[in-house]
């Protein structure tokens, strides 16, 4: 079997070059001063100090967390009923609905978000409609609302698909058992369906929270040039300001935050994971 093992060697080399080294470079830049070359590295914690001592940068961090949290909560609240409705449909319809939910995901995020600009703009569709009914035009674009809308629009399919698959996978006999033991529809949902779909909700949360907390495209398009989430700060540092060291430090901070939140959700999920695995084992 040696022959097969050897097949991995090219990719391992590639992986080290294209995945490991770039990550290490971020760490290296984050801990060094600007302008030095590899020969004379000057280590420093200034980049981190700058971020954590400045309330304004912490504010962007807080904004990112707040917006992503709102997005995630909305995605759960909207996504759950949708997923539930899809899971209830007949298999044929279910496949079609899943395809319909998936389809927008395949379309460029930028393009999809751009479409909203025309709808939300001050002179956009919604304000035209409001004006038509004699209502006061409202500022929609370049607000928190627009950013959250853009994020929900882009990321909710992940939530729906995760919850839907956990609902569809659910052992139907568990639901019958609940009915059999006297639970009506509501009690059954509360005691059985919902708790058992939680792993899907948790992985949905991961899939929504992660991209929204690090996003810089949606805040910029929907929030305007002055809308600074942590992703925008990173982009700003690398593209306009040119402070790669500081930018690397922020990237590192963000990666760490995300790793921590992943760890937490995985821990939350773990109990259920083993349950699922074991249950699978028994069924066989």
């Amino acid at each position, binding site marked *: 079997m040696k022959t097969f093992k050897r097949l991995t060697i090219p990719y391992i080399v590639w992986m080290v070059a294209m995945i490991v080294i770039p990550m290490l470079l971020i760490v290296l830049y984050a801990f060094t001063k600007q302008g030095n070359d590899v020969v004379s590295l000057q280590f420093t914690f200034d980049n981190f100090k700058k971020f954590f001592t400045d309330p304004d940068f912490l504010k962007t961090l807080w904004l990112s967390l707040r917006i992503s949290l709102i997005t995630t909560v909305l995605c759960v609240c909207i996504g759950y009923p949708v997923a539930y409705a899809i899971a209830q449909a007949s298999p044929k319809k279910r496949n079609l609905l899943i395809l319909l939910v998936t389809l927008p995901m395949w379309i460029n995020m930028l393009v999809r978000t751009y479409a909203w600009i025309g709808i939300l703009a001050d002179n956009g569709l919604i304000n035209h409609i409001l004006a038509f009914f004699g209502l006061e035009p409202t500022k929609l674009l370049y607000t928190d609302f627009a950013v959250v809308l853009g994020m929900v629009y882009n990321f909710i399919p992940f939530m729906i698909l995760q919850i839907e698959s956990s609902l569809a996978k659910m052992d139907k*006999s568990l639901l019958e058992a609940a*009915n*059999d033991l*006297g639970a*009506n529809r509501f*009690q059954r949902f509360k005691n059985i369906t919902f708790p*058992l779909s939680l792993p899907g909700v948790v992985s949905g949360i991961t899939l929504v929270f992660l991209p929204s907390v690090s996003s810089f495209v949606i805040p910029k398009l929907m929030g305007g040039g002055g809308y600074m989430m942590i992703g925008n700060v990173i982009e700003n540092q690398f593209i306009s300001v040119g402070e790669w060291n500081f930018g690397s430090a922020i990237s590192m901070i963000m990666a760490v935050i995300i790793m921590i939140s992943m760890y937490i959700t995985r821990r939350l999920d773990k109990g259920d994971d083993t349950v*699922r695995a074991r249950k699978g084992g*028994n069924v066989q």
Partner: protein
Amino acid sequence: MEMEKKKLIQFKNIVKDFDGQLVLKGINLDIYENEFVTLLGPSGCGKTTLLRILGGFLEASEGHVIFDGEDIAQLPPYKRELNTVFQKYALFPHMNVYDNIAFGLKIKKMSKDVIEQKVLKMLKLINLEGFEKKDVTLLSGGQQQRIAIARALVNEPKVLLLDEPLGALDLKLRKEMQYELKKIQQEVGITFIYVTHDQEEALTMSDKIVVMKDGEIQQVGTPTDIYNEPENRYVANFIGESNIIPGVMLEDYKVQFDDIVFDCVDFGFKEREQVDVVIRPEDLDIVKEEDGKMTGIVKSVLFKGVHYEIMVETVPGTRVSVNMQVTKEHDITSSDASEKISANDFYVDIEDVKDLNDAEIIARADAQAWETQEDEYISISKIEYDIKEEIGTYPVTFATSNGTSVSIDVFVVQQQYVENPKANEAIAAFNFFKTVDEIKESAALDTDLKTWANAQSWKLSDESDVEISNVEYDFDPDHITAGTYQVTFSTQGREFKIHTTDIAEEGAEVGLTFFPEDIHVMSKMGF
């Protein structure tokens, strides 16, 4: 006693169809209080469907389910006074043992202390005290099984439905649980309706067995009734092992099969009615040839632990003999000796001539070509023939792309076959040609001989295939030489299966005997 029992459930003409497919064809069945009833049948017979209709998970297309005097068709499952133990238990994986058992009681909003009391009592009943806080997914199959039962029983239903609950357990555990289930049922004193396809389970536990097939009830009765007095061939076959022989009821207490008249204890059939006769293997005894009611040859003896299972053939099968002409090597070598080609003559039935094509002819002639050096097969690229649908001999030539060729003869003949109207069978085979090497190299000679001779057997009534079970010949395949040999093909004759502690030798001529009461005569199944 029987008279005091009250009808608890009545199925009245229950019909169920799924997308036009009838799964239940008008089931009428009464179930009494405190009964252990088993619905027995193979998968797809409708037994689970019937159970789910009772549980409220399915609606019957027609008919009524009367429960305790009330029609419950419109009652949702959670309002029915019965509980189910599901096939794979359906324990809630996110709850511990206690919460699983307490689920139904909590739904009913009982007070905490009452719940606790009841759950602990149940745990005692199922012998799992101290397991309250355990994760249900970490328990063994048998333990999960008992929790599922406890979870259902704690609600004090009038009926407990069990849907193949032991199916997922291993054999030993299953036996233990059978015993335990019966014990629990007797202790709680409610009706159990148990669905299984395992006849042994049914016989061990039930007060009443309902045998089902294709959405219909075949027989309802106690285990002894069903075993000893099966109503038809299907029930007899399904419950236990049996020898079933077609016969004729001459008059009351006289039945005839295989040309012999036997005394029996059955009566009430029409004169000369076609019947099926059941003799259980343990009711047959092997005796000396002259003492037997029937005689036969021992075909096989298998050791089964407490007894031997002996097969005795009392009536031989239908046979046909053909000639096998064995020749020496007949390979044709090409002029430059680089390749070889070979093929055999063969016989073909005049009716099959129209089906002959290149591939069929190559297969029947066993035409092959190969490189001498590498010993690798090469394809036969050309085949010439002109076979008419007339009796006669026709030449066929096979050739490779290099032009190496071989010619054979194909004999178109009228196929002869042997009919055996008594056994409702016919058998046919062709003479054939083979080389010494082909016979020596054959890895499964019996099968090859059948193929070479194109041996076939069929039922006279409907032309369905009959297996050719015996191939006889008198040559030694490892040392065969050129010449003509006879090969005989035959079908299975009448065989009896006997369970006995006495041993008999294979090939011995023996007698078989039984008591008149061991014969059970049944009506033929209607189709």
